[in-house]
């Protein structure tokens, strides 16, 4: 049986381990930081499974593969919330809504009345919006925990201090930058708020020319708010400017957020290649799986499947780029 060692237990590494295990392999999994946590950028993701909304700035291939993500996560035993995405814009930024509608599909226009039916607390606040009814979201930290637990049930534990054996699958995210010269970090900042005064049941995106924002409900009055996109590479703390901008956008969505408790301010860097699409890259006895960019939970299932197919059958994956430097 093929011997495989996966480096990195973030969303990429755990997904590949899951796919290999489902094909009867028993990969090893090494991550010096141990179980999934704040060291992994997938820890701070939004967890939106929103392929159609992403088409606003992403290539069609992201939509095509992203459509399968919700089923995959559900099949792993992860709770996926299927309530769609509501996209809104303040009335003075309506042009943004028109542009968003033109760039995307699988949405229907909603008026004030429908918005109030979907999210009663937003009644009277927005005159127009778009509803992407087939989209969903999950809780990233919960998803990582489920993958890890299921792997542990199959005897695949995360080793913290070990050397790889067999074929190495490098899924270290931005840490692999030491070996992948064209990988860069795209910084993202996020907030976690507790705000029981506001009840939103689905992902809401608020369009704005400078500060587009999304709010993902985590349940029990907890909301994840994100996320900036800054070409600054490194991993720093959240800047005051970003925090202020995100909080004022949240306040613009619903004034109730003014009373929220700030549970967390998080910042990390998404690993990305120049075209912002993921890659599998084979070099010697190492297969690199990286570049999920802002599509970690949306594309990890596809990239994991491609990696596992390649390892078990030699089938050349769509995201393979051996020719790249």
């Amino acid at each position: 049986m093929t011997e495989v060692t996966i480096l990195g237990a973030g969303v990429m590494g755990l997904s590949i381990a899951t796919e290999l295990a489902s094909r009867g392999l028993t990969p090893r999994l090494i991550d010096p930081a141990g179980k999934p946590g704040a060291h992994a950028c997938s820890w701070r993701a939004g967890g939106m499974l929103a392929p159609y909304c992403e088409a606003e700035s992403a290539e069609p291939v992201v939509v095509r593969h992203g459509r399968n993500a919700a089923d995959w996560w559900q099949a792993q035993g992860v709770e996926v919330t299927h309530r769609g995405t509501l996209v809104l814009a303040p009335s003075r930024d309506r042009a943004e809504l028109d542009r968003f509608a033109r760039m995307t599909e699988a949405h229907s226009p909603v008026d004030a009345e429908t918005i109030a039916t979907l999210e009663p607390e937003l009644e009277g606040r927005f005159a127009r919006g778009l509803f992407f009814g087939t989209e969903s979201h999950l809780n990233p930290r919960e998803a990582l925990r489920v993958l890890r637990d299921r792997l542990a049930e199959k005897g695949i534990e995360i080793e913290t201090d070990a050397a790889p054996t067999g074929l190495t699958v490098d899924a270290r995210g931005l840490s692999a930058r030491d070996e992948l010269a064209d990988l860069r970090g795209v910084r993202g900042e996020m907030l976690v708020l507790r705000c029981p005064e506001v009840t939103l049941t689905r992902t809401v995106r608020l369009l704005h020319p400078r500060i587009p924002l999304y709010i993902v409900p985590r349940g029990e009055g907890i909301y994840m708010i994100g996320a900036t996109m800054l070409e600054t590479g490194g991993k720093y703390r959240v800047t005051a400017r970003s925090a202020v901008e995100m909080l004022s956008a949240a306040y613009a969505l619903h004034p109730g957020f003014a009373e929220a408790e700030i549970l967390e301010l998080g910042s990390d860097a998404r690993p990305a290649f120049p075209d912002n699409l993921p890659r599998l890259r084979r070099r010697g006895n190492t297969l690199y799986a990286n570049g999920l960019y802002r599509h970690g939970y949306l594309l990890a299932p596809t990239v994991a499947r491609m990696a596992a197919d390649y390892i078990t059958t030699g089938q050349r994956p769509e995201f393979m780029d051996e020719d790249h430097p």
Partner: protein
Amino acid sequence: MPVFYGTDVESPLMLGTALYPSPAIMAEAFRASGAGIATVSLRREGGAGQDFHNLIKGLNVPVLPNTAGCHSVREAVTTAQMARELFDTPWIKLEVIRDDDTLCPDVIALVEAARILSDDGFQVFPYCTEDLSVCGRLLDAGCEVLMPWGAPIGSGRGLNNPYGLRSVRAHFPDVPLVVDAGIGLPSHAAQAMELGFDAVLLNTAVAKAGDPVAMARAMALAIQAGQLAHAANPIEARDMAAPSTPVFGMAVLG
């Protein structure tokens, strides 16, 4: 082709590097348009963004760093100094903003910052309004280029005040002039060139188009058309028709 501070630039299209779907698409837009200058923001994309800076350098066009996002003289001056070190260029696009909703230049602070930077050896490209007094003050402060806005940044409204831009051209016939900001369509860019401007600086209109690469090319073609048209000395508009076919010798009916 435009000459800025003694440097020949290969195209009158100056293209920004923000807001593209990906760096790969940005690079393709630069190739498709043959843009002569790449502008890059320091304030938010600076510091440790070495990877992104390398991508910009890889475009192989002269880089014009800017001070976008600066709200005071001191902030703009510090940002300009960082830019000079990072990109090894005396060029700086000077932006000092007062109001975040219109991104209207704070012309008072702008003149002050332009003076400080020019004295320090910078070659300043000021993002300004089309106000003649402000333009004059900027030249007094040491600027040898003026970049009046067409409309607020990112608004895509085109040239809000063609009369004002025409007066700037007429008042400062020998100063290189750039329409900076507000361009939404190739026709806007062509209009700026028809007015006799030396270059057009734009970003959002290309980066946020559904097909940025095609739009970059369209902008480059429009700019070329406007430039040719200006050089060709266009006719003046008139109220009455002027037949383009000679009427002499036509049969008189009735």
